[in-house]
């Protein structure tokens, strides 16, 4: 039964309301970030961008950003490499323990991250490792590498193994098949997995909380300020972090669109 016109309209409106619901708190944060007063109260009487200036000048902020960035970049690179192979084991090859492997890598995703962070803290302690931003990379990987693997796996499901078999029949070795056939076919999945890995690591708080030791990431610092009392820098840094992430997403989407448009145009020419 085709959905009636009125039902469709109601569903569209509902969808728009849900998006509004998801983004309403960010609207409040953005307003708060341009309020001049040290103690926030709505409606905002005087607007100013001075907190942005302060944030850019502050050395604490640049330190927080560079720690978060280092962790996120390392997590991204390692996750993508692990996810490439992990996805092949998840979706492509038929091997004996495949279903067990699929379920095993889902466990960390289901796991409460605070508890995972604490467990890692005790584990590092019993190994004699002093927590720092490096241990936070390991902590992020436990959660993010499986997610990246799932994202690449979705792509790996949709490619035709006959392509690899054809290359093998023509005498290509395993490594050159991986390089020449599998890698290019999975590339879009790897790019989105990398994007996810970077953004999830950049915004992660519960895993960093116990595993960064004396170092601190941006979300950790924001949380500490939120719990211990208001700082006008909290909304400002929040907005800057969000805008940064969204710029990255839109750049990626625009690039993906350009690549596709380019390919279609070339196909049309031929």
């Amino acid at each position, binding site marked *: 039964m085709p959905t009636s016109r009125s039902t469709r309209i109601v569903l569209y409106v509902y969808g728009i309301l849900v998006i509004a619901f998801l983004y*309403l708190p960010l609207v409040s944060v953005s307003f708060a970030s341009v309020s001049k007063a040290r103690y926030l109260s709505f409606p905002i009487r005087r607007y100013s961008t001075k907190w942005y200036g302060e944030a850019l000048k502050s050395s604490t902020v640049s330190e927080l950003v560079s720690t978060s960035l280092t962790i996120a970049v390392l997590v991204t690179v390692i996750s993508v490499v692990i996810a490439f192979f992990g996805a092949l084991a998840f979706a492509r*090859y038929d091997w004996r323990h495949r279903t067990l492997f699929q379920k095993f890598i889902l466990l960390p995703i289901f796991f409460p991250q605070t508890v995972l962070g604490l467990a890692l803290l*005790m*584990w590092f302690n019993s190994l004699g490792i002093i927590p720092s931003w490096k241990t936070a990379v390991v902590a992020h990987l436990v959660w993010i*590498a499986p997610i990246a693997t799932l994202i690449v796996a979705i792509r790996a499901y949709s490619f035709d193994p006959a392509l690899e078999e054809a290359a093998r029949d023509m005498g290509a070795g395993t490594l050159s098949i991986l390089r020449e056939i599998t890698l290019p076919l999975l590339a879009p999945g790897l790019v989105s997995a990398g994007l996810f890995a970077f953004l999830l690591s950049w915004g992660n708080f519960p895993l960093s909380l116990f595993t960064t030791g004396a170092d601190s990431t941006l979300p950790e610092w924001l949380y500490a300020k939120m*719990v211990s009392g208001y700082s006008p820098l909290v909304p400002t840094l929040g907005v800057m972090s969000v805008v940064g992430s969204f710029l990255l997403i839109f750049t990626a989407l625009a690039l993906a669109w350009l690549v596709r448009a380019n390919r279609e145009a070339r196909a049309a020419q031929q």
Partner: protein
Amino acid sequence: MNRLDRKLGLLSALPLTAVLALSFVAPMLVVAIFSVMPQKVFSFANMPDFSSYRVFLEQGYYKSLMWSVGMAFAATLILLVLCWPLAYGMAKVFGRFTLVLTIAVVASLFVSENIRLFGWVLTLMKGGLIEGHLRAFTGISFDTPLYGVPIIVFGLVYVYLPFMLFPLAQGIAMVPDDTRQAAYDLGASRWQVLWQIEVPLAAPGIVVGSLLSFVLACGALAESKILGGQAVIAIADDIETAFTFGQNWPLGSALSVILIVIIGVLALYGVGRVDLDAIMGRRR
């Protein structure tokens, strides 16, 4: 299944398995061992006893566990009802709008949970976005809904919405249109189609979505701390306190083990029932 596939499968599973063995399985073992150590020790070199589990029962920690589980359950039910129409729209009705919705929802996931919850505080507090503007324009004022159990459930619903929405949409997409059409042609009512066709056929998505939201909400911490003003203590909060202020690793470990067992049993039961290949779109 040829021999080469078997070898390559095993080889390519190695990196991820190694990472998870070293930094997921091993820490869990450490937690399990610590949970049977005497109170307030920091090494394994002690005679095991089960004092931490006694403390859990005697000092009322089970109350936090019940609050966490109860609130997670409420949030999951609300999410199911809230997400069903939208997931239905995404799977069957919206065309390009599905893509817009997906991007909007996924993008919101990349914003740190802290910032989003803090945004709700600014929205709902006295003198916040809603109350402040209402009072300035109409003179009407209301008490802030912050700092209570309902607002914590609200926070859980807000944060875990994507984890219910996407699996649910995936599940509903698995319901063939022909089957629904046939049911309608045979005179089934809207409710009959929902309960006898759509819900059973979309079950894998319902199971995965509910499980994800429930499990994540059980271990949630930030909602009760930031929005709830600690009106009730969540179990994850107790675990954190035991490790930090309490300096009692064995107690923290025992509380973690109890939470892990509840979550683990549910997750294994649920995941064991679902065909991952089918839900992720395997062709063969």
